[in-house]
């Protein structure tokens, strides 16, 4: 099997305002499975197989547990809080414990809600452009807490969309200590770094933010050595009116379905990644994570 022909399994794709179009594009680009975050409403007759995540709290309010058993009966492959904030750590602990009881995997997207409010990496470029910054600690503080709670509850957990070198280090250490977690990165963060936002380029306003070149390199290395198991598209379509705005006002996220295969191919061509590892990142690893 080659990277050029593999049917890809995406761990995160949003359908946007025209779900039918997104699904048709996914089919054309060779996706076999798309994982949808909570509250996406796909058409009945999707040309691509869909795996759905349910909310872990009601309306992702971070405060009241969602009816996870009902969602499970409805076929969700896991539950998540997305990037929405938790009301407090006790709710989070209870939610993970409840999910464990239901045998539901949790997909955690670590981001501290206060530090995470910044719109660009806390580096030289954002400081110069006068943008509110988001330090890497916005992710690593939440990740460290998530890892502690995963260990405490024994829930099956997947960590999604890490963006910095320190997160790679934390995951590596947790895995070495035997914590049964998996992890993914968005293809955008393997291909780009904070340099892209020069000129207030709103197309590169993402969440998590694009970080330094050193972070980008650490993510690629983390993927190559298997600390990071999978790569997803994190496809996030927005109407142009929500995107074409002064940088901080632009909705975060970009249309990236077309980047997953081409981006990994480029990394393989550059010798940063074996083809086998790239295939695993969009096939075996996500299949295992989603228990397909």
């Amino acid at each position, binding site marked *: 099997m080659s990277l050029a022909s593999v049917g890809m399994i995406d761990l995160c794709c949003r359908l946007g305002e025209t779900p039918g179009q997104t699904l048709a594009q996914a089919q054309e680009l060779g996706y076999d499975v798309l994982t949808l975050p909570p509250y996406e409403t796909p058409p009945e007759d999707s040309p691509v197989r869909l795996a759905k995540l349910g909310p872990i709290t009601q309306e992702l309010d971070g405060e009241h547990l969602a009816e996870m058993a009902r969602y499970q009966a409805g076929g969700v492959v896991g539950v998540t809080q997305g990037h929405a904030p938790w009301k407090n750590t006790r709710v989070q602990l209870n939610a993970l414990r409840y999910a464990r009881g239901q045998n539901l995997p949790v997909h955690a997207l670590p981001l501290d809600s206060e530090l995470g409010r910044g719109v660009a990496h*806390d*580096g*030289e*470029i*954002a*400081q*110069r*452009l*006068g*943008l*509110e910054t988001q330090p890497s600690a916005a992710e690593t503080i939440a990740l460290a807490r998530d890892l502690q709670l995963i260990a405490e509850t024994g829930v099956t957990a997947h960590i999604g969309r890490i963006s910095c070198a320190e997160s790679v280090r934390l995951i590596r250490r947790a895995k070495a200590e035997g914590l049964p977690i998996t992890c993914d990165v968005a293809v955008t963060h393997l291909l780009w770094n904070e340099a892209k936002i*020069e*000129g*207030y*380029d*709103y197309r590169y306003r993402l969440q998590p933010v694009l970080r330094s070149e050193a972070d980008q390199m650490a993510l690629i290395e983390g993927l190559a050595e298997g600390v990071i198991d999978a790569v997803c598209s994190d496809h996030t379509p927005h109407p142009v*009116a929500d995107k*074409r*705005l*002064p*940088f*901080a*006002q632009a909705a975060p996220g970009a249309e990236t379905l077309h980047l997953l295969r081409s981006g990994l191919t480029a990394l393989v061509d550059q010798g940063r990644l074996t083809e086998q590892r790239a295939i695993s990142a969009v096939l075996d690893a996500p299949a295992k994570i989603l228990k397909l």
Partner: protein
Amino acid sequence: MPSTAQLQLTDKGRLRHFLTTEGLPKDLMIEIMDRAATFLGDTPRDLKKRPLLKGRSVVNLFFENSTRTRTTFEIAAKGLSADVVSLDISTSATAKGESLLDTLKNLEAMGADLFVVRHNQSGAPHFIAQHCTPELAIVNAGDGLHAHPTQAMLDMFTIRQHKGDIANLKVAIIGDIRHSRVVRSQVHALHGLGCQDIRLIGPGTLLPRQGLAGSLHDDLREGIQDADVVICLRLQKERMASALLPSEAEFHRNYGMTLERLGWAAPNAIVMHPGPINRGVEIDSELADSDHSVILNQVTNGIAVRMAILSMVMGVEERL
């Protein structure tokens, strides 16, 4: 995408817009200051009016309130005989539905030649310059935390007026460096004019981590030692609410400028402030009203510098 520094220049290196002092060529900065000098009279009342923009229309587009800056732009534009309209467009009104681009297209249709833009979002004037018709010039009157380039140029002008060549000076800036668009523009301008010794002074929560030329100091005395120019910044009350400072009083104890503390700086040092002053917070009345203070000169110079900039972005090439 082009950087802001690239976007503001024409192919021939002239000013197409005026968005930032970052990367602004030294000869253009000197030209702005030389041109501004020709508008100054002997007293503030004798500003020399010249009809360089007769028949042109200037729209002051203020998405964020600022009576002072808007007024100086109005006086500057009128001093050049331009037709001037000022619009206060609160950000809440645009948030209600009309996007910035829609607002812009509407105003363009009214046939303006130049927009003076103030906005609370960093990069908004850059965004407007990218999306407006090519005939329209944009002057940045302050955007978010990013830049306030006309303020910086009037400060450079004032420093040159009192202290001569900026390259040989030690310049200290005190206060909320991290959240100040004025400082960013001042530092880029100072750097571009060859200043080798820029000190940025404030408590750790108000200092930038990286990205600005200049040395960082959390000790006032060390920072202003032998400085020729001391610039105080206005302390915003919001800084206390967001847990960046305990109180105005503590800020004043550690970083407030007084006549006595000015003794640590070079003899004949000048004191500047972009205004409006919080007396007794960043600067004492005794110092603000002393001979060392050039704060009121800054206001008058602000009009002359803005006249220079408006005429240059409108392509008035006449050597004055």
